[in-house]
């Protein structure tokens, strides 16, 4: 659905994106993660036909974005990180303007506008002037506009930036709904928890380079490097540490008060065997669980905290 091949974008002497390649299948929700200035917006703008790549190719459903610009524009819905809205018109007028701009026939416009207003939960704001909307509502309005022509691919650049927690949750719920509608979504953000819930693929970009990219679970395993266990005991923590350290394929054992964290070099470790070993040796286990790695951990592990 969306393929980027060896993309490079230079602004004068500054290289914003270097040799970036990725591929999104239909229905994929790809979280594009990176610090500010990493090259996320540039990449998305190239995909949206707004910038020409210095090198490389970008295809949307097989159409080259630099050659088949009109076809691509009909298939994508782009929501920029910073955008303005025409303040002097009402919400429905704003959507009607863009519906007309997308050549949606007059007789179908009303139904489509009602549908996107309902989807974005703005039905009650239909006759309100755009300038009276909150930032979160404007964000939803922009998303509503993006959906008017029913695009197959959504390019969303920081859709939740600058929003309060409630508005952020609302946008997240909306994106989840779009995912269930089968849209292919490329969504960028530097706020990781907002992506963790609904992305099936992620890519981490730093200084214009895609450091990791692929399936979320796969990347988590790759970054973690093997299974991790978190065990809380009632007593005899030192004994537990000694026992666990002797297990095969153990990478590290760390003690923190009554809690022991064991990191293995592989996933092929049976939890039950480890638990059995502890109990057999008379240790009282209060809790036993696998260590959960989140996007934040991955991000911190793979990036160096530099911007281009």
């Amino acid at each position: 659905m969306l393929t980027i091949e060896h993309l490079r974008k230079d602004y004068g002497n500054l290289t914003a994106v270097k040799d970036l390649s990725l591929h999104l299948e239909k229905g994929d929700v790809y979280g594009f993660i990176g610090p500010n200035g990493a090259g996320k917006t540039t990449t998305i703008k190239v995909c949206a036909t707004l910038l020409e790549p210095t090198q490389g190719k970008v295809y949307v459903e097989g159409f080259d974005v630099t050659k088949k610009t009109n076809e691509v524009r009909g298939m994508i819905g782009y929501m920029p990180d910073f955008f303005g809205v025409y303040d002097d018109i009402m919400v429905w007028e704003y959507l009607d303007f863009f519906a007309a701009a997308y050549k949606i026939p007059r007789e179908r416009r009303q139904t489509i506008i009602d549908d996107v207003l309902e989807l974005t939960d703005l039905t009650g704001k239909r006759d309100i002037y755009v300038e009276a909307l909150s930032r979160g509502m404007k964000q939803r309005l922009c998303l509503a506009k993006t959906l008017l022509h029913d695009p197959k691919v959504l390019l969303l650049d920081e859709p939740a930036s600058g929003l309060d927690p409630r508005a952020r949750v609302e946008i997240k719920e909306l994106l989840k709904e779009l995912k269930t509608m089968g849209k292919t979504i490329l969504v960028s953000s530097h706020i990781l928890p907002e992506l963790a819930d609904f992305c099936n693929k992620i890519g981490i970009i730093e200084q214009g380079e895609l450091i990791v990219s692929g399936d979320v679970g796969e990347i988590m395993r790759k970054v973690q490097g093997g299974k991790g266990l978190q065990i809380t005991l009632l007593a005899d923590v030192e004994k537990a540490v000694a026992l666990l350290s002797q297990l095969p394929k153990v990478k590290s054992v760390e003690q923190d008060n009554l809690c022991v964290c064991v990191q293995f070099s592989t996933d092929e470790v049976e939890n039950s065997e480890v638990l059995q070993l502890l109990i057999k040796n008379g240790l009282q286990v209060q809790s036993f669980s696998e260590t959960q790695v989140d996007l934040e951990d991955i991000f911190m592990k793979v990036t160096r905290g530099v911007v281009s």
Partner: protein
Amino acid sequence: MISDNPIFRRESIPRFWRRASFFARTGLVSIYIALAILPTALVLTFWEEIDSTGAYLLFSFLSHWPTFLCPAIAPALVAGAISSEREQKCWDLMVLSRLTPAEIIWGKLLSRLMPLVWVTIPFIPVGITLLILSERMGPPGHMTGTWGGFDSGDYALWMILGWMTGLLVAFANGVIALYISLRCSSTRSALLIAYGVAIGAYILITMVIGMLLMFFMIPTFEPMTILSITPSLLWGVTIPAVFLTIMQRRFYRLDARVRAA
């Protein structure tokens, strides 16, 4: 059809009008009509007192405002058409829609030039009254100075030609301003450059062409009014033809340059 153009439909209606209530709109229309007929009403009231040296001259000067006012304000109206959208971060969304470059250009241009129509309309009764007056009092002195001399019988022709030329030059200046707006990221710079180019080049080029026509190329051509108006007509026809063609053909490339910068 321009009336189906969403940009024209949205931008040709001013913000204050969009928001005004029925009563406010009625009030505004009344004020506008009053302003439009006030000069004429004054002339008709003091018909007998008007002499050829005072009020008549002043009044007749009013009839030339469309000729000079419209070309002068056109760049100001159009220069922000695209650059202001860039500043407001609305431009990308419009470019990505299915509107063609021609639709964007004509929608922007005509909607932005609409105020010229509203500025010109109040001068129509002024002009008509002046034509009637000129039958009695002869052509105003400054008219003969501007256009190089003519009979009172030609007065109506020259006034209408002057207006048409003024509107044509205004359109040309608007086209230049739109081109500059397409190439600028800030409205302020677009405005300054548009005025510099449109007005500066207009004065320079029409002056040069006028001098060439009058002194070298066809020195015996009569009446001189044709020669003085020809450069403006040339400007009004050539500039839109050239710049509209460039804009329509290279719209995305010109826009991409600004974005890349």
